[in-house]
């Protein structure tokens, strides 16, 4: 009997110690400050703190990181009815020369435990992107467990921290950006979302790519074209405007929905074409040392609006004519975008290299290193085929 008692006692002690030391990793949800968005800028102003001074001596560039926090207090005040509208978020900025130490310094300012699993966007300022290698800047975000690879990446014109501000206090700007990104389905002027996971592959394969550009005007965030990141240097090379983006979307087959505006040749009145489906094929040709590409674009859609009074959509002739108009317009867009990327920026951002890799892997192995250079010189032809399926409820 005594032995049993002894055993029981020992067991009890063991359990109690286990329970007492337990709950190592637990942290209650209301004690967290959810980081929903992060922006990175190059610090240009004066520096004050000692640590920052150290960095200045070492000739290091400084980063300003702004985290957008949503905490239990802000969510409550954001949703409470009747009360004075307060901000549903809280932006905290800190400056330093590497990402994590700077983030940790935020502990000095924030009462909540910061928690980045719900981080949705990372916005990089224009200046930072064009001075520091993106791979270095983002290293922490690729390594850190809490940052989910499903987060989206943006480039901001001017100050990135501005993109995390809004005039409407009940809204959370980071979420707004994510929701705006869903418009990609309905227009060709927004890039397909670039997640951290996709970015990683791009960074390590040394290929150039586009990032969605965000500009702020009067406290309102707006998507404005795209930023070109050059594969070799991994720095910002330049910007494409919205109509360039349309051309890129047509080329790479990313156009999921959107409009094309053409003008009737006779009357000069606008006709608007809405995309139902769009496909594009980039076909590489290799003859000896000569590389060339053909882009074949096929699209189906409907006439969404037309101002041409003389013609009726019931008339097949008119549809034919309209198709021609749109084909021309699309080709013009593509040409313009190609011209910009091939000659102005000399970077391949719409996947020509990738197609070459798939169809001519051996050629690609040879040309991989100098691809952007090669790309700027290859001839590209473009074939567009548009077919109009219907014209809505009015045949007029």
């Amino acid at each position, binding site marked *: 009997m005594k032995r049993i008692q002894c055993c029981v006692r020992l067991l009890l002690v063991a359990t109690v110690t*286990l329970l007492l030391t337990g709950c190592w990793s637990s942290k209650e949800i209301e004690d967290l400050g959810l980081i929903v968005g992060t922006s990175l800028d190059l610090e240009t102003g004066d520096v004050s703190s000692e640590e920052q001074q150290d960095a200045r001596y070492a000739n290091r560039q400084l980063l300003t990181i702004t985290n957008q926090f949503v905490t239990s207090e802000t969510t409550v005040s954001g949703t409470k009815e009747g009360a004075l509208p307060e901000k549903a978020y809280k932006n905290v900025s800190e400056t330093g020369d590497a990402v994590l130490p700077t983030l940790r310094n935020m502990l000095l300012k924030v009462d909540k435990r910061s928690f980045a699993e719900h981080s949705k966007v990372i916005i990089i300022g224009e200046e930072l992107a064009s001075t520091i290698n993106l791979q270095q800047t983002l290293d922490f975000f*690729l390594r850190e467990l809490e940052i989910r*690879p499903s987060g989206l990446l943006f480039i901001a014109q001017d100050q990135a921290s501005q993109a995390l501000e809004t005039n409407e206090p009940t809204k959370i700007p980071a979420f707004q950006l994510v929701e705006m990104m869903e418009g990609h389905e309905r227009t060709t002027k927004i890039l397909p979302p670039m*997640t951290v*996971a996709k970015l990683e592959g791009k960074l390590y394969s040394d290929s150039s790519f586009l990032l969605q550009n965000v500009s702020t005007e009067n406290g309102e965030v707006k998507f404005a074209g795209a930023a070109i990141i050059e594969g070799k240097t991994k720095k910002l090379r330049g910007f494409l405007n919205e109509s360039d983006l349309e051309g890129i979307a047509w080329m790479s087959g990313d156009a999921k929905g959107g409009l094309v505006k053409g003008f009737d040749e006779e009357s000069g009145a606008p006709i608007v074409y809405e995309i139902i489906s769009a496909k594009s094929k980039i076909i590489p040709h290799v003859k000896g040392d000569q590389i060339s590409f053909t882009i074949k674009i096929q699209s189906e859609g409907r006439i969404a609006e037309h101002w041409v009074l003389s013609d009726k959509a019931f008339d097949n002739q008119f549809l034919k004519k309209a198709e021609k108009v749109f084909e021309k317009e699309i080709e013009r867009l593509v040409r313009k975008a190609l011209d910009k990327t091939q000659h102005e920026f000399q970077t391949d951002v719409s996947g020509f290299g990738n197609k070459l890799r798939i169809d001519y*892997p051996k050629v690609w192995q040879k040309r991989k290193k100098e691809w952007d250079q090669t790309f700027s010189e290859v001839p590209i032809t473009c074939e567009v085929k548009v077919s109009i399926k219907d014209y809505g409820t009015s045949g007029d």
Partner: protein
Amino acid sequence: MNSSMKDKITTSQAVVIIINYILATGILTLPRASVEKVKTPDVWISVFLGGVVAMIAGVIIVKLSQQYPDKTFYQYNQDIIGKWLGWFISACVIAYFFTISAFEVRIMAEVTSLFLLEGTPTWAIILPFLWVGLYLISGGINTIARLFEIIFPITFVIFLLVAFLSLGIFEIDNLRPVLGLGVVPMLKGIKTATLAFLGPEIMLLLVAFMYPSDKSKAVKVVLAGIAIPLLFYVITVVMVIGALSIEGVLTRTWPTIELMRSFEIPGLIFERFESFLLVIWIMQIFATFTITYYAATLGLAQLFKKNMHPFLYGLLPIIYIIAMTPKNINDLFTFGDKIGHAALILFGVVPITLLLISKLKGKKA
């Protein structure tokens, strides 16, 4: 409970044991390990061929075991190559089994503390795991087989579900071209891929536990047992590379979890699916851990012709200490590779030699 073999398992249970044994660490690390070697998108072919190699090895092992249908490897190898050499090989196999179970435990602890329990000490993660395993194993092979039968369908369904959900970020271009740079790089990956199929060796013991009428089906068992993990692995590799691209996979420590974290599907109750993957993965590790632990205990019991219980408890601290030995994650991966190499010798070379010897002996007699 003792080392006698009163417990019997059915054919389907044998298949499930092999499947659950094979599916383990590979789900999470195979994409990276094989891409490192191959460096082209043809990894899935390597994985497929790796599975075929494992099948061949499995068939040899089964053929060997079928020569002595009522004995386990530990018992019959002494009949073939004499007492001392047989004893030595048994000891090696036992050491292999408990080392691999220690390895699985440690990998589990690493991943868990990384993705689920940041800050919880490793011992606190490992100990309860060991104890639950102990509780299960004390019921014998039949109990183990039954538990495996529960976790296998769960794994199967959830795995297919998450794989299907990740289709959203799948890009076929990442998997092309097929054999663009010839077959050579693809061949380089076969060895790595084969290491992910460690598991058919359990047939050295399982054949003895099968119902006498089913023993002739053992070859089919091993083939089916490898075919399903093969399917799992190919799906995993294809999905991971398709979503993250070759370059993206290379730098990821745990590419498959990365894949699950790379997409969110709003609108469902769950937006995020890596928890599902981790749940089935931990169950699979548990399965691998218990079966190898059992195999080692059974070996010791049969080697010393004793009851299993003392070995069952005695092995626990050994497994724990081995699991804690690798100093960091790189050490751990090297450790895993070494176990794999040991397996290639122990279960690639040894069985075929034994099979030849026993055939020769049989002819003489």
